[in-house]
């Protein structure tokens, strides 16, 4: 049986290619039918903020790629409640079917996966 991989995405979408490159690992894994989960943590939660205007800083919009996750079979999506709270983002403003987890649930989540990559 294939090993499961949790991708922990910690970069804001405007902080360079990090967020996009983390997402690309998840999409590639989904394309190979691997069991992939994705956790948005720390500044990574900014990727989920609604009404972003990336063109104002000559960046491409990441949200379309994020919304492709379920199409690639990556539908185990999580976000750290604490990271949202710390940044004043309400969980109701998110654009994707993402499950909010408290600190204890985060520990359980990471325990559940065979592999973890943090970017």
């Amino acid at each position, binding site marked *: 049986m*294939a*090993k499961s991989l949790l991708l922990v995405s910690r970069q804001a979408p405007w902080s360079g290619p990090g967020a996009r*490159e983390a997402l690309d*690992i998840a999409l590639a894994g989904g394309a190979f039918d691997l069991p992939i989960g994705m956790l948005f943590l720390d500044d990574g939660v900014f990727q989920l903020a609604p009404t972003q205007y990336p063109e104002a800083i000559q960046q491409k919009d990441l949200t379309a790629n994020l919304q492709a996750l379920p199409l690639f079979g990556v539908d185990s999506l999580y976000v750290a409640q604490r990271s949202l709270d710390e940044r004043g983002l309400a969980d109701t403003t998110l654009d994707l079917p993402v499950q909010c987890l408290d600190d204890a649930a985060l520990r359980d989540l990471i325990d559940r996966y065979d*592999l973890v990559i*943090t*970017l």
Partner: protein
Amino acid sequence: MKFAIALFSAPHAPSSRRALRFAEAALASGHEIVRLFFYQDAVHNASNAAVPPQDELNLPAEWGVFVRHHRLDAVVCIAAALRRGVLNEEEARRYGRPSANLGEPWDLSGLGQLHEAAQMADRLVCFGGP
């Protein structure tokens, strides 16, 4: 034990040096490295164009010697490399760039190689950040 090693940081980041030392120690202890995978800024570790000062560590050169000596499977993510100007002859020609800065012993390939390595190995060990 079979290790897959993923590196995400640039050559000047301490984590790149730690990754190399870890890889050396793993082989020295009788373990196997199924693949090295360089992603994000780590693609610069595979460049042969870096010229660090002579009395400083030349990590890209050390990686090359290490990979060659042990005939390791060493893959550089092609998308991450192209974006950062790390090109082999074929890609330099394809995109009309004046020179290549990546060659043997490195392979340019896709993220599937990272997933495959992680599946094959007993442990995936990642190095990134500072």
